[in-house]
């Protein structure tokens, strides 16, 4: 029965896999990277962007053809504009065409003289490498980004994510705690720290971080999985199951893990 249930869930998750993780934040107060990154803007927020940001906003909304058309139209007036190339490269990154993304980001890199802009470009180059699994290159790019703008939060956040994914928790902790102190309400800062403490088996600390996350975002697949695991490891199995139930299960990676966790919890409860 459990096997059938798992298979059904797997089928459901596979069909929903394309949706990906919904990262947008409906309140700017919860977004510590608000002034640097459009990644967690809602569609409504993106609609309000004008001028130079119009095209990149389209990319974040997934309207790539429109965006590229606009970029082509704007080429002649922006050939020497590093911001233009940064946006175009970022757009191709978002679309998943990484070689092209790198070409345009490198153009931006060569054109820009401003360190802050260079930081942004290096960050985005790092993202491309990260997506392609070229982690040393990603790490180097994020570090270059940080060296050009030590106040920029996005590259530091991204570097922390890299460390986290590679289980370098201590390096990640240094960065995340500083970020959280600067922006204590950021959902992903708190989530990342919650995950970190969980992995370091500091469940109470982990829970305290998860508690800082507003209810609607705790239901997110990845957050819910981590929170449920924390509850489970703290012996709060019912709460763990409740958390798992609230998750939408739209992201296949996390959904499968949620299934596995549920199995373990139910086994434990049965015992």
């Amino acid at each position, binding site marked *: 029965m459990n096997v059938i249930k798992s298979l059904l869930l797997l089928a459901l998750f596979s069909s929903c896999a394309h949706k*990906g*993780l919904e990262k947008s934040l409906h309140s700017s107060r919860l977004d510590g990277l608000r*002034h*640097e*990154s*459009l*990644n*967690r803007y809602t569609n409504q927020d993106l609609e309000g962007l004008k001028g130079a*940001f119009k095209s990149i906003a389209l990319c*974040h909304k997934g309207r790539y053809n429109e965006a590229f058309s606009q*970029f082509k139209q704007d*080429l002649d007036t922006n*050939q020497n504009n590093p911001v233009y190339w940064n*946006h*175009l490269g*970022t757009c191709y990154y978002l679309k998943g065409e990484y*070689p*092209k993304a790198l*070409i345009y980001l490198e153009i931006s890199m060569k054109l820009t003289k401003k360190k*802050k*802009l260079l930081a942004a470009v290096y*960050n*985005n180059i790092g*993202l491309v490498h*990260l997506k*392609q*699994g070229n*982690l*040393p290159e990603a790490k180097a790019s994020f570090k270059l*980004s940080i060296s050009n703008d030590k106040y*920029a939060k*996005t*590259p530091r*956040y*991204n570097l922390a*994510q*890299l*460390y*986290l*994914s*590679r*289980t*370098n*928790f*201590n*390096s990640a902790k240094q960065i995340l705690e500083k970020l959280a102190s600067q922006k204590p309400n950021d959902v992903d800062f708190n989530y990342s720290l919650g995950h970190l403490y*969980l*992995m370091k*088996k500091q469940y109470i600390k982990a829970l305290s971080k998860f508690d800082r996350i507003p209810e609607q975002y705790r239901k997110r697949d*990845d957050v819910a*999985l*981590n929170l449920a*695991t924390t509850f*489970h*490891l703290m012996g709060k199995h019912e709460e763990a199951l409740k958390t798992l139930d609230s998750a939408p299960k739209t992201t296949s*990676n996390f959904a499968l*893990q949620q299934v*596995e*966790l549920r199995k*373990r919890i139910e086994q434990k409860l049965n015992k």
Partner: protein
Amino acid sequence: MKPIVLFILFNFIFAQTVHGQAKKKDTSKITRWQYLLKLIEEEEKTINMVRRKTDHLLYRQFELMTEKIKLYKEKENHAFLEMSSKGKKITRKKAFTQTLNRYEKTRKFGIKLLKRYPRTRYKAAIYHTLALNSRDYAYDKRELRYLRLAIQSARKKSEIWYLSMTSLAEYHYNNKNYKNAVSIYNQVIDNTDDEWHTKNLYNYGWCLLKTHKFEKAITSLEVGYKLSFETKYIDFREQIMQSLVSFYVIGKQIKRGINFVMKYDKTPYTALARFARKTSEKGFFDETEQLIDLAQDNFDPKEKIEQLADLRLFQFDFYNQYKREKKLFNIAKELTVITLNDYQKEEAIRKISAKSRDEQIIIKKDFDKVSSSYDVARLSSLESYFEFLSVLDVKNEAMYRFFTAETLYSVKEYQRALSSYKRALETQMKTPSQMDLNKKAVDGIFSSIEFSQFPKEREKDELVYAYTKFLQLWPKEKKAFVIHQKLFAIYLSRKDHKNMEIALSALIKNFPKKGETHRKLFKQRMDLAIKQDNAYLLASLVKTMQVGKFGFPKEETKKAEVILANLLFGKFQKLNREGKTEEAIAGYKQVFFNNHYPKSVKSEAGFNIGILYTDLNDSAKSVKWFKKTFPLFNNKEKKIKRVFLEKMAKRSALLQDFLNAAHIQRLVLDNFCHTKKQNIANFQQAISFDLANDYVLRSLHTFKSYKKCVEDTTATEASIISHLFRNGHSGDLFSFVEDYKLSQKHKKVLVDYYERLFWKNFSDKGSRNSIGKYIKALHDPELNAMLTGVKEYLVTKDALEDLLESPIELGEVFNPQKFNVDLNNRISQFAKLTQRQGELLSIGNPQLSLFVYDQLALSLSALASEIRNYHPQGVPKEMAAQFSKQMNIVAATFSKQSQSNLSSSERFMHKYELLSPNSRKLTTGNGILDVIQLRMPASIMANTFDLEK
């Protein structure tokens, strides 16, 4: 008498015969002459055979000698005339030598005869013959004497006396001794038997006229005229009438004359006409008019046409003489319509020409230079006279037109003069007149144009005409060089390309060495075409330049091609700017496919099509057009276009069309493979643009195909290697490195990449072994040590796992000693294995070290768990409790070591900022976490940096 008559008759017949003979050809006359001579000589011979000649025979001989003189006179006269006609001059004496000799001889013979026979009956006849011989052959002034002697010797009223008397009267008449002649004639004029009576009356009449006896003179001629009707008299009507009309006029008896003529002349026209001339000469205007009218009514039907013409010609002179201008004009006009024979025509022409000249002179004289006024009517008449002359003298029509023009010019009627000069010239060119007036007419035309003060355009028209005619006539004359250019200038001002071309061609033909001028004019035309935006024409002109017709240097031709291209393409470029790119392309295509345009322009058009398709993001068509047109350029142009293509490639890339960009770079390499030093960027971009689309196979193919076009492929190899690694094409990476033997050349980067691939695929044995082989090919000591270490790790890992999978079996009956021994052994084995693993840390490979730490932590944790779970069976409770306590203490040690390894691993990672490989499983020491493998998805969590400050 009879012999005399016979003699005379013989002479007459002979003369007529000889005269008749004279009409025949020379050869038959001579023959005839010889025959006659022979007859004479034969008769002479016969006479000479008689020893004693009578006066009769001698007289006959005298007559024969006289006949001989005549013969020789004729012969020598004929010869004389021939020589005269050939222009040879000879004196009469020399010309008639034989005649004179024979005359003298005959004269002497006659005198001798008279001396011998002083009372001969032939005396008067002999003297008469001597007189006539003297008159006809010698001109020795002996005639009078001999005639007087003849008359003296002859019996009065005899025939010889009569003949001598008439000869004497003629003598006096001829010598203008009219009184003497009259006196003689009075004595003989009554002889109506003489057939020459009519002639005598004629001569008599003349003598009477000369002695002012007009009435008698007229009467004598009238009688002679009337008698001429009779057959017994010689018909002297013509001569008599000729003189009679004069007599009437001189005698002022015109009316009588008219009546006489009308009464007696059956064909009175001739007489009337002559009469009219005479009355005209003498100032009888009315009478002349009357005679003219009569003559007009009495034309000889067979000769009417000719007579009418003669009459009109006479009337012309008549009216001209009497200044009857209107009538004169009408006659002149009529002369142009009636039929004239050649002579009459000549006469008409001569008369009207003379009149015209007179009129010209008058007009010129009367022309007032101050007021520029003249006799309009006279001028009009003169023009008409010239017209008449044109009709009469068709072959000289041009000349008359010219005269008309000259006349008009002289009175400053320049515009009219111009028309006439033109007509004159046109006519002269078709039918040249006797006067060579081309030059004069053309000069007249130019001068008239100058003074006519035409409006500008009209003046140009006229100048065009004038220049054209000049060049038609004297295309190579020195002045023509300037004229050609002036004509061209007019056409230029009128933007008349067709004629400009013709004018220029003519200049070239006639002045082939004036290249500089040819080019100057050609350029003027070209400038006009440019100004008019006439690309089609300009294309023709450029083609002309290209074939070298004008000797333009290549740079100038090129410049013109550029101008043409700009002109042609200007509108297309405008369309493109307005967003009508498709229309612009259509326009360029029209140029490309039109053979009218020069090759350079067509190729530019095609190239521009390629550029436009690039803007339209139609890569396939863009490249197609570049490929199509590139071969059309020459080497120099190709070099320029190369730069353009490279820019287009860059632009394509910037416009996110890497496919097109790569195509273009390959096109450049196709055409410039030989310029190895300059090709490196093209080569790199041709590959990197394909790699931008992740077209691995294509980019590798490009590398293979075009590596010969560059000197050094190192940088490109590095780019390919990086791309293949970073984009997950490990298989292609290994093949590329193997195929081109790049292991050592790019060892440094390959060491890193291969190791990362190794760790990435560590969990799959097959991949691990395969990558291991490639790593070995790098011959890197560190990597080789790593491989050895990994091998050892895996062996020890398997050994540890095997060891942990076979815990101590306690059995139903617990044997503590045995258990202790087994436990110790087990721990020893474990320790050896963990030590072997621990030694792998000295290799210093970070990833291997992480795996070792993980393995040690796992193994220690598993051992601790195993020990903690030993529960002996069949032992007392206390013992079991004690046993568990001991086991927990032992297990705790191993747990602690396990944690220690975990901590070391963490510290290691933190210290060296390591990133664990994908294949490394999470090892937290927590069962749930290790099972779920909870990892943060960094690539999903990471954020873009868009809002740059």
